[in-house]
């Protein structure tokens, strides 16, 4: 019972501490971070195929529907 009670208590604490509102507040007010600006985040898909002839892997940066837009070093 005591352990269950402690578990519930920790769950409440964890849930409150991981609230998106609190994380955003700590990030911006305490750590001085800012939300990513437009163009700073690009969602990329990594092609699963092996590179031909043992060339070093250079994952393609892809946008949706596998349109190739470039390579990252």
């Amino acid at each position, binding site marked *: 019972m005591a352990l269950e009670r402690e578990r519930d208590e920790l769950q409440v604490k964890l849930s409150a501490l991981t609230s*998106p509102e609190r994380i955003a507040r700590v990030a911006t007010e305490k750590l001085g971070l800012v939300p990513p600006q*437009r163009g700073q985040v690009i969602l990329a898909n990594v092609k699963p195929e092996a590179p031909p002839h043992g060339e070093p892997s250079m994952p393609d940066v892809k946008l*949706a529907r596998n349109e190739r837009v*470039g390579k990252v070093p």
Partner: protein
Amino acid sequence: MAAAPYRGRRMLAALVLLSGFALILFRLFNLQILQAAELTAKADRQHRKAVSVQGPRGSIYDRHGKVLAINMDVPSVFGVPASLDDPSGVARDLSPVLRVRAGEIEKKLKQERSFVWIARKLDPEQGRRLERMPLEGIGVVMEGQRFYPKGPLLSHVLGFAGMDSQGLEGIERRYDPSLRGEKQMVVLQRDALGRTVFPKGLHEQVPSPGHNVILTIDEVIQYIAEKELEEAVTATRAKGGIVIVMEPRTGAILAMAVNPRFDPNTVQAISADRWRNRALTDTYEPGSTMKIFVAAAALEEKVMEPETLVYGENGRMVVAHTVIHDHDRLGWMTFAQVIQRSSNIGSVKTATALGAERLYRWLRAFGFGERTEIDLPGEVTGLIKEPRNWERRSLASIAMGQEIGVTALQLVTAVAAIANGGWLMKPYTVSEIRDEKGRVVVQVSPQVRRQPISPETVHTLSKILEGVVTHGTGSKAAVPGYRVAGKTGTAQKIDPKTGAYSSHLSVGSFVGYVPAEDPRLAIVVVIDEPQTEAWGGVVAAPVFRRVAEQALQHLGISSQEPVKLAMTTSSEMARP
């Protein structure tokens, strides 16, 4: 002989004694035989006490298992005044732990009662401190308390539970039978002084806890919606607002934000008006967003085609002795432009070509005037009069989104039907119910209500709605890198003082979906009584953009178009 007088006395004494015995025997017979059943039951009632014990309430989680509502046992402290020798001293000791003035505690402890609550539902740390204090006549019991660890997040959807663990609003109310723990009656014994004797091992007989409810809500998207709505309401000095984010293919609600918010942890201090989930309990006149459905009906009935030319009457037309205006002096335009420029006159002409009966039938087909049947309490049907009750101006009014009352939920559900290829879905907020061991008890599947519109019409209409954002009134809803389709709405509100349309009270809205070619999100934004600007394209469309942009990123839905890198150039990338 002296024996004679004594004999008489002996006889008398024997008679008295025998009568006494006979009386006792009669009484015993009466108690033990005649009244036995009744008296046994009475004794049982005095010695036994039945109390109801309830298992803890189930928890509520978001779609990723994040806790949104949970029960926790917290300490409550009571006193037995009769067994206290020094109430003043005890009160002084308790005061710093309970953070209550010693005088107040002392007053309670001096009452002539066998039991008094001193403080209920304290925090666990206070309970631990109390347990370390050896106080005679003071006891601590654990009581279940509902916690909403994220504070006001999702409060209008979650609702809240009362002191006795009963769901009173929102999910807590709608799913109360599942969330509520099992109830059991436990029989306790009482001693001769009426004190309860708790049998050993009683705490091990706790009844089963309630089931856990898993929502379709994504707490991050909910946070994004609430934050952006709050900022817009503050910036426009509006009375409030609503944002709903829905998955068009399933009808699952990802976020439902209502502003102003409230904290369900401190609900006693808040007026009932703040609890109402206005996304489904309040109707408003939608204004131009209704033109989407007038257009859908006209295209499906082949009354109009995108290239059909409509004359805008230079922005002024008389209908049923009243003048209808457009925001610009529009001349000839295509039907697609009627929607993209949000022409009232063009929309009225389209509705006239459809006729009252067909327009009414189509609006009903999209779910206006009936409940969406979402799994939340308090939903209203909205208001749409039958054509036989229409006045001369009604057809024109409804074509402009007046004389019709819709909820924000009805609007986003109807737009989701256009986004998903023509299926009107039943919106829902709960995806699963699980028992305490994690076994699925109920699994909710998406439900189609009907298919009001064909995929071909959807395709044509979607192109027109994309034009609203690329070169129409909804340009501020554009999300760079994604194709957005939608429609703005600006509706005057009825002034309660005059009963006529107000010149300064309005509702600005934007409803749409993204990415237009493969919609993943349908979003409605409603800003109620903005003070800075009235136009939906100005007050609501930017909120749509900001919510959509962040939600798409959070869900990992990649852009369909090449995006320029902001931090590095291609030459920098080529360097080793």
